[in-house]
């Protein structure tokens, strides 16, 4: 059987979170009653003209610089002509042959190795509106149109066909999302559509230099969907070739519920967009000094930050990657480390209990009630021996639920650790007296019996006894008895 190589390139649309739309003053806010964030310009009424929102250009340049692109000195807008009811002018103002930026890249980790994925180009364009149907588009007796999204600024980021597996494609998209979020120009929420992704996929016999015929896959609405759709499509293409068939160049749509890609339109049915220069806008001549000013305001990006964490905090690479996955997580970590120098302890709590609770409540770190100060105060309580590691887990859950300070929780619930040897010794004596059979088992070599005795002491002290003291005293007293 022939071995195949997979070739994937992604086209990613990112909504920029400027306050107003790309060519008019209407709000870009997500949600809102239908057709309330509109004006004559974004509705494409007769006679109106677009005026470029300079903030959009600034944000697009910011994203492009973060993705290591060259910013064009001369760029322009073009019209992409096609008819659809969610597109008020029946053309989209986009950029065709002179995009804002070219020749960028980002790095992904593949089996512990860094791999560079090329970015061909980044251009600006306006978003379209949304059609709303009763039931499905096929059965609805009418279509309603909501133009709130019309004219929301987008950048389209086109990658080189550099990815070799669905996993790499997913890693690329995740990394792209992280970098864009770091720059602060977009929320990149796939579920709200502020990050959208189409894929070009082909396969070829391993060792072949020529590309196979590609298909374009649309309608993948999550990272998981992207990976599943690509895996399905790769298998489908290989199966077609193995049966002696040919791949048809076409656009296919991912059916999430059936788990398959389905034909949407063939190459012959593809639109002729009749691109031509947008005569209502003047060409962009982009000042180099302005580009450098924007570059100077770029934050530390995920790769740099990750490397710094490894070097400065001596963290394992895995920890550093997880802690820099979003700017907010990394900021939280650094606030903690500023208050409490044991970076590995902070990392363990953030990647452990904090992460688990956030996932369980479907929250992100910006919604977390526990402040970095509170988390580190709790770590200090542990260091001082006020609470044990076991109690700390209980305290932390309470902090997460209520946002209260750890000291307050410890006091209210009486969770202060018992470190008085006499108090613990008295409990140990009681436990040994009422469990003579277990002590016997232990002395015969049954190690598990010791654990039971520890448990009984902890139970009697409601978990507050210092575990090391309990262990020591139990051992001492058993051996002195025998």
């Amino acid at each position, binding site marked *: 059987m022939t071995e195949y190589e997979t070739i994937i390139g992604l086209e990613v649309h990112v909504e920029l979170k400027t306050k107003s739309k790309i060519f008019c003053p209407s709000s870009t806010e997500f949600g809102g009653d239908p057709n309330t964030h509109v004006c*004559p310009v974004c*509705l*494409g*009424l*007769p*006679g*109106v*003209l*677009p*005026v*470029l929102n300079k903030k959009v250009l600034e944000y697009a340049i910011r994203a492009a610089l973060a993705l290591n692109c060259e910013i064009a000195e001369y760029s322009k807008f073009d*019209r992409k*002509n096609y*008819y659809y*009811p969610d597109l*008020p*002018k*029946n*053309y989209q103002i986009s950029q065709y042959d002179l995009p804002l930026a070219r020749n960028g890249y980002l790095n992904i980790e593949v089996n512990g190795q860094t791999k560079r994925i090329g970015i061909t180009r980044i251009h600006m364009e306006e978003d379209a509106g949304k059609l709303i149907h009763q039931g499905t588009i096929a059965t609805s007796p009418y*279509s309603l*149109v909501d133009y709130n999204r019309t004219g929301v600024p987008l950048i389209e980021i086109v990658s080189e066909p550099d990815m070799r597996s669905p996993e790499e494609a997913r890693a690329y998209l995740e990394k792209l999302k992280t970098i864009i979020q770091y720059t602060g120009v977009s929320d990149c929420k796939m579920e709200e559509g502020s990050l959208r992704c189409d894929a070009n996929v082909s396969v070829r016999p391993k060792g072949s230099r020529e590309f196979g015929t590609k298909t374009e896959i649309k309608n993948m609405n999550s990272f998981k969907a992207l990976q599943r759709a690509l895996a399905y499509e790769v298998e489908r293409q290989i199966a077609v070739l193995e049966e002696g068939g040919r791949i048809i160049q076409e656009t296919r749509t991912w059916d999430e519920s059936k788990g398959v890609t389905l034909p949407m339109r063939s190459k012959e049915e593809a639109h*002729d967009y*009749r*691109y*031509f220069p947008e*005569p*209502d*806008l*003047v060409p962009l001549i982009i000042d180099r000094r302005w580009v450098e000013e924007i570059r100077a305001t770029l934050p530390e990006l995920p790769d740099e930050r990750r490397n710094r964490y490894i070097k400065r905090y001596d963290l394992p690479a895995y920890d550093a990657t997880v802690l820099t996955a979003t700017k907010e997580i990394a900021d939280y970590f650094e606030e903690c480390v500023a208050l409490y120098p044991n970076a590995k302890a902070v990392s363990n709590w953030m990647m452990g209990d904090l992460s688990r609770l956030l996932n369980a409540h479907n929250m992100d770190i910006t919604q977390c009630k526990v402040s970095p100060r509170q988390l580190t105060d709790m770590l200090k309580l542990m260091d001082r021996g006020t609470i044990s590691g076991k109690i700390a887990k209980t305290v932390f859950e309470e902090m997460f639920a209520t946002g209260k300070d750890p000291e307050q929780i410890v006091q209210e619930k009486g969770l202060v650790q018992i470190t008085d040897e006499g108090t613990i010794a008295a409990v140990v004596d009681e436990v040994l007296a009422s469990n003579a059979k277990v002590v016997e088992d232990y002395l015969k070599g049954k190690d598990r019996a010791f654990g039971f005795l520890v448990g009984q002491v902890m139970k009697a002290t409601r978990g507050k006894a210092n575990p090391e003291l309990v262990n020591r005293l139990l051992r001492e007293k058993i051996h002195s008895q025998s």
Partner: protein
Amino acid sequence: MELYYLTAHELHDLLLKKEVSAEEICRAVFDRIDAVEEKVKAYVTLTRERAFTRAQEIDRKIAAGEEIPPLAGIPVAIKDNICTRGIRTTCSSKMLYNFVPPYNATVVEKLEAAGTVMVGKTNMDEFAMGSSTENSGFFATANPWDLERVPGGSSGGSAAAVAAGEAITAIGSDTGGSIRQPAAFCGVIGLKPTYGAVSRYGLVAFASSLDQIGPFTRDVTDCALMLNAISGHDPLDSTSAPGDVPDFTSCLKDDVKGLKIGVPREYMGEGIDPAVKEVVGQALKLLASLGAEIEETTLPHSRYALPAYYLIATAEASSNLARYDGVRYGYRAEDARDVVDMFMKTRSRGFGPEVKRRIMLGTYALSAGYYDAYYLKALKVRTLIKQDFDRAFEKFDVLLAPTTPTPAFKRGEKMDDPLQMYMSDICTLAVNLAGIPGISIPAGFVDGLPVGMQLIGKPFDEGTLLRVAYTFEQHADYNRRRPSL
């Protein structure tokens, strides 16, 4: 002379002297409309009530001793492709028969600020596509000088309204000659300013890179006053020129001594009616006698202007007119099976034949496989044409040519022959491709029909055009003749 036949600055003087009120001027114009509109048919919509309310406001200001701007109380007609808030704006198309804009075009705002009184919205070739106003989706407009003849187009309603005394001044739009050609046919002054001099915001686009708004007036002084009122940078139009504009009335000097006037031989050759050439020749003699230096020159790429124009203008139009699909406003075919059927039926029925012809031509010119051969080639020709003018203006202050190859033609004469119709803009198209200003002024008469002469200037040098036109007007009285209706 009757009030309705005076100029704006004459009426302004009467207002200042309190010899007449703005309301009386308004009444005179509407009485005139009542008398002749049935024959001329210049208007799609009249805004009579609003006009009287506005005129009374102006009168109150005068009575209160307030200073009024020069165009205050002057009845102005607006071409029906310029958006007016709360007033139907149809582009003389069935497609927009019921469209009421929720906003004013910038020029409309500026004219209101200047105190003018809007009389109504004038008839035009549908979406400004045509040269006779016969392509109106509603009715044709007649030439006030000869009701059997066309007023020119596409701003035929505006030109006819000024010529017939149904407005004192008017606003039109010019994409390939649509102000200058009807001005010539109707014996009035028509100016197409430099591209970017007047905001296009609110002008329903035909060809965005060529469209420009400009005035129709009865003399050059009024033209300068109107240009003062409507020009200037507009943040709502990215293509509008930055910077301040001069007071154009300061250019109104009776002096052309030493001014270099070039006469492009391509505009005086084949295809130009000898009688028109004779009129232009006489005008040149007059200007020479006043001290202008006149010399023949050449614009070698002129013969490519018409094909280049009809590729660029139609390409842009095919995209600009895509929004008329029945989804949001205007006409919608109600018997459609689905959305594509609705698009097709709406556009098939809503647009007239000339608009459809141009949309098809423009769509073709932009299509994959034809773009380079047609649209891109036309853009290159456009650059060459612009360079022709640049070279000519190294030597000359203005260029002078006929505005049209013939005086107004008969109604119906060219309706079955689009190419012949297109040829009537042969002297004006190149000016739009180059983005430079052009003015048409009455230069004489042939068989009782007005003949226009076109002055073409350097970018943003409307001042010199006005100066030459003003000087000519001081020594010839063609602009003071009125049609008998």
